[in-house]
C-alpha cells in the first residue's frame, strides 16, 4: 500500500513538475506590492470612498523643529499658497458658479490635494497648506496626466501612503529619528513626481502640459539629469531647496528686489534664454536705402516651453529700442510701467504667451471654460528668429551719428488684465517685470 502511495506521489510530482515544459511565461510578477492607499471618485469628482483620512496628513508646522530651513523655503513657495492664493480663490469661486456639481472638486484636486484624496468638504488647517510636506512625502507611485472633460470632473490620480508614520524622500541612507520612519524612494528624483498637477488637458486641449513638453524635449524623459527638480529644486549645499522656484512671486507684498524669492526667480529666468543679433560684426547689411533691418534670435535653454503651465496668464516678450542722439526713433514692446498692457496691434511685437477662449470667443483668465487654445510659445530648446524693420521714410536718421540698439527679453508672471479684477488691488501694483536677457550694440551708418 505504501509503495502505491509513493508511486502515486511520484506520478503527482511528475505531473506538476512537467507543467513547466509547456513554455508558459505567465507572469511571476503580477501582483506588485500595493504601497499606496486608494480612493474612488464618482462621476462628479466627489469620492465614493477613500482609504485616506485627514489625520493621515500632519501639518507642516510639525516638521518645523527638525526641518526649519525646508519649512522656511516651502512656506514662501507657491506650493504653500496654492489654496490661499487670491487669484486661485477667485477662479475657484467662478468655477463653482459655472459648474455647481463639479467645479469645487475640480480645482482643489491640485490646489488643496489633501481635501481631494480624503474627500473632506470642511476646510481643515492642513488643507489650507496646499501642497504641503506630508502630501508630497507620502508619494509611493506616479500619477498620470489629468484629462478633464467638458464638465471638469476631478479625476487626478495620486499614489500616496500617508498615515503610516513613514516619510518618503530622495535621501538614500536616511538617519534614524524618533519622530517618523524614513524611506528612500527613487521617485523623488524623477519629473514624474510633478504629475498630475503639471500636466493637464481639458476637452482634449493640451492647455497646461509642462510635463509633456519636458518629456518631448528630453527624448521621452530618458534621463533623470534634467528633471524638474534639477532646476526647480536645485541641489545646493548638500540638500534640495524647497522653495520650488518658478516664475511666480508673492504678489500680496510690494516688490522687494533683494528678497530671496525675487532673486531666485530673476536668476532662473536669466538662465532660460539667450538673445543674439543675427548679423556679422561689420553690420554691413543693416541699412539699405531707407530701411534699417535688425535681425535677432531668441534661444530657449529650458526643457519646457516658454512660458509654460498657465501660459495664458504669462507674457514673455522682446523690448527693442533704437536710439539716435538719445532720442528713440523706433521701439517695440516698450511699456510705460509694469502694469501697462502690451500693444497687441504692434506687428513688430515678438510675444510668447497663449490665449484661451470660451465658446463665445471671450478671452479667459482661468481654465474651466476653455473651448479654444491658441499657443504662441517658444518650444523647449528651440530658437526663434525675428527681424525688425524700421523704414525711415521721414528722414529721421542722421548718417553722421551712431545708432544705439538695445534689445531685452522681458517677462511678467501675469497679464495685467487678469489682475485688474482681483482683490486685493495691490496685486496689480506688485506685478514685477523681470529682465531675462539683454543685448546692446552701436551701429554707424556707412
Amino acid at each position, binding site marked *: 500500500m505504501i509503495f502505491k502511495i509513493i508511486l502515486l506521489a511520484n506520478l503527482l510530482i511528475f505531473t506538476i513538475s512537467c507543467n513547466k515544459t509547456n513554455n508558459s511565461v505567465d507572469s511571476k510578477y503580477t501582483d506588485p506590492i500595493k504601497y499606496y492607499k486608494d480612493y474612488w471618485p464618482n462621476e462628479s469628482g466627489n469620492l465614493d470612498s477613500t482609504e485616506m483620512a485627514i489625520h493621515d496628513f500632519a501639518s507642516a508646522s510639525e516638521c518645523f523643529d527638525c526641518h526649519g530651513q525646508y519649512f522656511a523655503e516651502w512656506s514662501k513657495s507657491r506650493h504653500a499658497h496654492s489654496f490661499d492664493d487670491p487669484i486661485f480663490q477667485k477662479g475657484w469661486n467662478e468655477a463653482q458658479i459655472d459648474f455647481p456639481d463639479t467645479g469645487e472638486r475640480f480645482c482643489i484636486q491640485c490646489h488643496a490635494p489633501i481635501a481631494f484624496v480624503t474627500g473632506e468638504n470642511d476646510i481643515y488647517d492642513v488643507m489650507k497648506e496646499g501642497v504641503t510636506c506630508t502630501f508630497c512625502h507620502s508619494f509611493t507611485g506616479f500619477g498620470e496626466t489629468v484629462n478633464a472633460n467638458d464638465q471638469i470632473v476631478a479625476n487626478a490620480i495620486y499614489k500616496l501612503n500617508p498615515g503610516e508614520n513613514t516619510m518618503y524622500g530622495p535621501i538614500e541612507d536616511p538617519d534614524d529619528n524618533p519622530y517618523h520612519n524614513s524611506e528612500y524612494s527613487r521617485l523623488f528624483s524623477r519629473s514624474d513626481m510633478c504629475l498630475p498637477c503639471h500636466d493637464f488637458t481639458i476637452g482634449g486641449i493640451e492647455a497646461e502640459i509642462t510635463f*509633456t513638453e519636458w518629456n518631448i524635449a528630453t527624448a521621452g524623459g530618458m534621463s533623470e539629469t534634467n528633471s524638474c527638480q534639477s532646476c526647480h529644486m536645485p541641489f545646493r549645499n548638500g540638500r534640495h531647496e524647497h522653495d520650488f522656484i518658478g516664475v511666480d512671486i508673492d504678489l500680496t507684498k510690494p516688490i522687494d528686489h533683494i528678497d530671496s524669492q525675487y532673486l531666485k526667480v530673476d536668476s532662473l529666468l536669466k538662465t532660460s534664454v539667450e538673445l543674439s543679433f543675427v548679423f556679422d560684426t561689420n553690420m554691413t547689411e543693416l541699412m539699405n536705402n531707407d530701411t534699417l533691418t535688425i535681425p535677432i534670435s531668441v534661444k530657449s535653454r529650458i526643457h519646457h516651453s516658454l512660458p509654460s503651465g498657465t501660459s495664458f496668464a504669462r507674457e514673455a516678450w522682446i523690448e527693442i529700442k533704437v536710439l539716435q542722439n538719445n532720442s528713440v526713433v523706433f521701439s517695440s514692446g516698450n511699456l510705460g510701467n509694469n502694469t501697462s498692457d502690451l500693444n497687441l496691434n504692434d506687428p513688430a511685437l515678438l510675444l510668447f504667451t497663449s490665449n484661451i477662449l470660451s465658446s463665445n470667443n471671450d478671452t479667459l483668465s482661468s481654465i474651466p471654460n476653455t473651448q479654444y487654445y491658441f499657443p504662441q510659445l517658444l518650444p523647449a530648446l528651440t530658437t526663434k528668429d525675428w527681424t525688425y524693420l524700421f523704414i525711415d521714410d521721414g528722414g529721421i536718421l542722421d548718417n553722421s551719428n551712431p545708432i544705439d540698439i538695445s534689445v531685452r527679453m522681458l517677462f511678467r508672471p501675469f497679464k495685467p488684465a487678469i489682475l485688474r479684477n482681483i482683490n486685493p488691488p495691490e496685486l496689480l501694483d506688485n506685478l514685477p517685470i523681470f529682465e531675462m536677457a539683454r543685448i546692446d550694440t552701436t551701429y554707424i551708418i556707412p
Partner: protein
Amino acid sequence: MISSPYKNLKINNMNSLYIVLCISLTVYSCGLFESDDPGFSSEKIYVTKQGDDEIAVINLSDGTIDTILIDYSATNCMVILDGEECGNAGCMWHEMGGGEMCMSMSNSTINGPHFTAIDNTNRYLFVTSMESGWVGRYNLDNHQLIDKEMVGNMPALMVLNTDKEKLYVSSMMSMVASGGGMQSRTDISVIDYSDDFDMVMTNNIETSSPSPHAIAINQNGSEVFVATYEGNWLFKISTSLNSVIASKPLETFTMDKTLPVTRLKPVQCTHTQDSLLFISCEGGEWTSGASTDTIPGQIQMWDTNKMTLVDTLQFSEFSRPWHIVSSAVSKEIYVVLKGQFNAGLYPDSDGVACVSYESGYLQLKWHIINDVFRYLHGIDISDDGTRLFVSGETDTNLYEINAEDGTIINTTLLGIEGVSKLQGVTYSPN
C-alpha cells in the same frame, strides 16, 4: 535493507527498485537534465529596468524571472589625488581656487541601466548605465559582475564585434542642460574586452555631430554606423581605422553636421547582411529660427555601400518610432512606435509595426495597437525569427509577439507601472 526517512517504513530491495525507477522516470521525464538535450530551450530575455536599477532576466523555458541588481557602489572621489585615476573612477577633476581635487559627478548613486548587449561566444552580458556613466560586464551564465568601465556622460546603446571583442557605445540624446552643465556628446566610445577581467576604453571616435545615439554594426564587424539625434547625420565608421570614413545628412535640409538641428531625431538603427541600414526616426513638431515643420515618424532604408537613402516609410507625426530590430531569416524589420506620453489623446499612434523590404522598398506588413500599451520602448527578436519581445516603458510589461502576424502570445509584468521604466530588450538563445 534501506533506511527510509519515513517513520517506521522499511522496504526491501525489490521495492527500492520500484522507487528508484519511479524517481528516475520523474527526473528524466521532467527534463531536469534537459540541458544535455540539444532540443532543450534555455532562451532568456534581458530587460533593463532603468527606474529600479535592475535587469530582469526572463527564462522562457519555465517562466521564471531572475534579477540582476545594478549597484556600482559609490566611489569616494575625494580620496583620489591623480587626475587620470579620478576620471577612470567615474569622478570629475576640478580646478578650484588655485588647487585641484577629485569630486563626485553627482549626488546620488543612481545607475539607470538602459540597454544590454550579449556576446554569446564569450558568454558576456554588457549593460550601459546612463545615469552613472558606467558600462558593466557580467558573466552571462551566472550573472555575476566581472568588471565595469567608466564611459561618462550617459552611455546608451551598444553593438559588439565578438571576434575582436570590441564594444561600441553610443550616448544619450538631447541632454543639453539649462544654465550650462552637461553638453551633448559627439563621439562614440570603443571598449576592448579581450582581457578576461579588465575592460579598457581604447578609443573615442569623433563624429563632430551632436548626440550620436543610433548605432549598428555590419555582419563582419568591419563597419559601425551611427546616426546623430541632434545633428541629423549618418556616419560610417571603419572599425580598423577607428574613424569616420563616410557621412551623409539624413535629409538635404541639414548640410552642417555640427549643428543641433534635432529634426528627424534618429533613435536606433539595424544593419542587415544585404548592406542595408534601417533607421528609426522619432520626428514630431519642429521649430527653428523662423521655421516650423511637422515631421512624420519614419523608417529610413539606406544602402551602406553607396551611403544613399533608398526608401522611407512614414508613420504619423505622433508615432515616435523607437527601437528597431531586423530579422535574420526574412527581409523584415520590426519597430516599436512609442507614441505620446498622454496616449489617450492620440489613439492608434503607438504600437509595434512589421515592415517588409522584400520588394526593394519599404512596405508596412502589419501594425498592432493595444489599449494596454503605454510608451513602448525596446524590442528584440528570437534567433529563428518567429517571436518578438517588446518592453512597455510605462505599462511595465514584456510582450512576446508572433512575428508573423503581430499576435500577442504572452504578457509578463516586470515591475511597478510607471516606476520601473523598462527600456532595452535583448534576446539570448541560451
